[in-house]
C-alpha cells in the first residue's frame, strides 16, 4: 500500500514535469504587470486600476507586434496587504519578461514593494499612491502621475478657505495612509490661513456616523475636510444631510467615482473634491474610454481607472522608447526604468501632459476642483468648479 503511495507520487511528479514542458514558449514576450487589491474592501478601486491597465495594453498591442514583440498583461492582487504585496513584488522581480508595473492603490503596499523591486530595476508608475514618502525615498524606479498629499490637500483646503470662505473646519480622515496624509496636509495648510480647526479625528466606521455628526453639529463648523474614499464619504454625507447639516464637504481624488452619487443619494449635494483626472463630461476622450470600459467590464469608469489608463500609457510609451533606443531589440529593465523617468508626454493622455521630476513626481499637473450639484437635467452630478495648476517643489 505504502509503495503504491510513493509510486503515485513519483508518477505525479513526472507527469507534472511533462505537463510543464508543454508550456515552454519561444516568442519574445514583454509583460507589463499591474498590482492592486482585487480582493477585500477596496477591490472596487483596485479593479479599476487593473482593468484600465489591461485596456491600455490591449489598445497598444499592435505597436509591439509591429516590432516583433508580444505584449502581455499580468495582474497581481495585493489584497491591500503589504506582505502579499512584497511577495508579489518578488514574483515580478523573478519574471524577467516583466519590464514595468502599474500600481498600487495603497501607499502602505507600494512602499515596501518598490524597495523590493528597486534592485531589479522594475519601474513602477503609480496611479494612486499619494503619500509623500512614496517618492521622497528617491528610488529610481518609483514614479507617480497622481498628485502628492502635500499638493492635493492644500489645493482643496485653499479652495475651502479662500473661495468657500470657511472659518471653522472640522477635519476627518479614514485612518488609511491616504486619507490621513491628505487630511494632515490640508489641516496644516488651513492653520497657516487663519481658519480654525475645530477638531481633527479619524474613523474606520463604515455605517454609523451618528456620534461624529452629533459632534459636528455641536462644533458649529462651517465646512468639513474629510480625507477618505467615496465608499465611506458617501454614507457619511447622506447621514450628515439627513441630520440637517448642509455645510460643504471637501476631499481628494478618493471621492472620484460615480458610486459616490449613488451612496450619498441626495446627500451628495455640495461635496467637493480635488483630482487630476478630468471629469468624464469635460473631456471627449474620457467619454470614449468610459463607454469602452463599460462595454468591456460592465462597470462605469471612475477616476482611478482614468489614472490607471494614463499610468499604463506612460509605461507603454516608456517601454516603446526604450525598445527604439535599443535598436528595436528587447531593452533591459534599467533602460526601461530610465526611459520612463525621462517621459515627456503631452498628447494622447486624459490627465494632461506628464513629465517627471528627479524623484518621479509629476512636475506640474492641472488639478480640477469638482463640485456635486444639480445638473441641467435636475440630477445631482459632478461639475467642474475650478482648476488649479500644482507644481512640484523639486525639479
Amino acid at each position, binding site marked *: 500500500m505504502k509503495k503504491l503511495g510513493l509510486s503515485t507520487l513519483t508518477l505525479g511528479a513526472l507527469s507534472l514535469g511533462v505537463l510543464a514542458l508543454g508550456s515552454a514558449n519561444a516568442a519574445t514576450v514583454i509583460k507589463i504587470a499591474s498590482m492592486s487589491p482585487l480582493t*477585500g*474592501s477596496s*477591490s*472596487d478601486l483596485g479593479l479599476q486600476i487593473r482593468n484600465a491597465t489591461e485596456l491600455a495594453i490591449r489598445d497598444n498591442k499592435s505597436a509591439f507586434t509591429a516590432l516583433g514583440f508580444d505584449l502581455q498583461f499580468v495582474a497581481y492582487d495585493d489584497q491591500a496587504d503589504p506582505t502579499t504585496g512584497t511577495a508579489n513584488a518578488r514574483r515580478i522581480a523573478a519574471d524577467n519578461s516583466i519590464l514595468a508595473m502599474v500600481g498600487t492603490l495603497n501607499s502602505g503596499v507600494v512602499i515596501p514593494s518598490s524597495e523590493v523591486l528597486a534592485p531589479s530595476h522594475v519601474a513602477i508608475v503609480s496611479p494612486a499612491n499619494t503619500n509623500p514618502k512614496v517618492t521622497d525615498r528617491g528610488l529610481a524606479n518609483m514614479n507617480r502621475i497622481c498628485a502628492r498629499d502635500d499638493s492635493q490637500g492644500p489645493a482643496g483646503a485653499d479652495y475651502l478657505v479662500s473661495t468657500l470662505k470657511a472659518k471653522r473646519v472640522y477635519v476627518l480622515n479614514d*485612518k488609511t495612509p491616504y486619507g490621513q496624509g491628505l487630511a494632515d496636509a490640508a489641516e496644516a495648510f488651513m492653520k497657516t490661513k487663519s481658519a480654525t480647526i*475645530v*477638531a481633527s*479625528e*479619524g*474613523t*474606520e*466606521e*463604515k*455605517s*454609523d456616523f*451618528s*456620534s*461624529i455628526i*452629533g*459632534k459636528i*453639529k*455641536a*462644533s*458649529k463648523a462651517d465646512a468639513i475636510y474629510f480625507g477618505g474614499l467615496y*465608499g465611506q464619504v*458617501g*454614507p457619511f454625507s*447622506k447621514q450628515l444631510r*439627513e*441630520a*440637517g447639516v448642509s455645510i460643504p464637504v471637501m476631499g481628494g481624488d478618493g471621492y472620484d467615482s460615480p*458610486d459616490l452619487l*449613488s*451612496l450619498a*443619494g441626495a446627500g451628495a449635494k455640495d461635496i467637493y473634491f480635488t483630482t487630476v483626472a478630468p471629469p468624464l463630461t469635460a473631456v471627449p476622450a474620457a467619454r470614449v474610454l468610459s463607454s469602452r470600459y463599460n462595454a468591456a*467590464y*460592465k*462597470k462605469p469608469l471612475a477616476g482611478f481607472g482614468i489614472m490607471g489608463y494614463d499610468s499604463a500609457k506612460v509605461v507603454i510609451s516608456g517601454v516603446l522608447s526604450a525598445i527604439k533606443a535599443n535598436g528595436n531589440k528587447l531593452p533591459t529593465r534599467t533602460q526601461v526604468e530610465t526611459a520612463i523617468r525621462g517621459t515627456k508626454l503631452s498628447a494622447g493622455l486624459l490627465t494632461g501632459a506628464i513629465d517627471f521630476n528627479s524623484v518621479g513626481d509629476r512636475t506640474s499637473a492641472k488639478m480640477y476642483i469638482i463640485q456635486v450639484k444639480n445638473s441641467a437635467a435636475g*440630477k445631482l452630478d459632478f461639475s467642474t468648479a475650478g482648476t488649479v495648476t500644482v507644481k512640484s517643489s523639486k525639479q
Partner: protein
Amino acid sequence: MENFVTGILINGLLIGTLYAIIALGYTMVYGVLQLINFAHSEVFLTGGVVAFEIFRVLSPAPGAEPGTGMNPYLVFAVALVTAIVVCGALNIVIERLAYRPLRNAPKLVPLISAIGVSLILQDVIKLLEGFQGRFQLAVNVPGAFTRTVFTVADTNVKGIDLTLLIVAAVMLFGLNRLVNHSRVGRAIRAVAQDRVTAGLMGIDSNRMISLTFLIGGALGGVGGVLFALKFPNLDPYSGTIPGIKAFSAAVLGGIGSIPGAVLGGLVLGIIENFLGSLSGLVFIFPKLAFLGAIKAEYKDVGAFIALIVILIFKPSGLLGRNATEKV
C-alpha cells in the same frame, strides 16, 4: 448641551436596538447549543443583501416620479418575509452541514467550523454580487423610510427609526411568548437544559435545534433588512463588526437570556455612542479640552473594555443567571 446629550441617547438607543435584534439570534443559538454562531453575522448580512435586491427590483428607482411603483410598506413587508425565509433556511442548512455532525466533538471544533462558515459566506456573497458587477451595495431605500417623522431636541427621528423600534418591540414580545409560554418553547428550553433527558421525555432534540436555528436565522434576516434600511451601504464584509458587537451585547446582557440580549444591545449602543461623542463635549465646555484626545476611533476600544469589565465582575452578564457548573 441638552440637544447634544439627547442626540447621543437617541442615536445610541437606535443603534442599540439594532444590536439587540442581532444579539437575539446569537443568544438563541448559544442558549441551546453553547455555540457562538460566528456565521450569524453573515446570516444577518444575507438579510441585508436580500433587502438590497428586493428594494432594487421592486422599489422605484431614485429620482423617479413620486407616487409611482409599489407601495413602500408593501415592499418592506415582501423584503421582510423573503429575508426571514432565506435566512432561516440558510441557518438550518448551516446547522445541518457544519454543526450537527460535530455535536459531540470538543467545544473548540464547532466554534472553528463556525468561523469557517462565516468566511465562506462572505466570499459567496461577494461572488454572487460580483457577477453582477457590484461590490458595495447602495440600498435603494424608499423615501417613506428616510423622511423625518418628528424632531426631538434637534435630532431627526426618521421613518426607519420608528419601524426599527416597533419591529424590535414586536420581536421581543413574540420571542418571549414563544420561548417561555408555548409548548415548542418549553421543548427548546428542555433541550437547552439537558439534551439527553429531553430525548427521554420524547422531545426530538434535533428538530428543536433546527427550529432554534430557524428562529435565529429569521431574527437575523429581520435584523439584516432593518440594518440595510438604516445604514443603506453594505459590502460582503460589513456584517463582521456589527456581528461582533451584537455578540458582545448578548454577553453583556447575559447570554441565553432574551431580555438580557435586548438590554445588552441598548447598553452597548449607548456606551459606544457616548464614547464616540465624548470629545464633542469640548465644544460645550471649552475647559474640558483634554477630552479632545478621546477620538471617535476609540469607541470600539471602549466597547470592548466595558465588556471585559462586566465579565470580570459579573461573568454571567447583566441579566444572566449564575449557572453552576455540571461536573
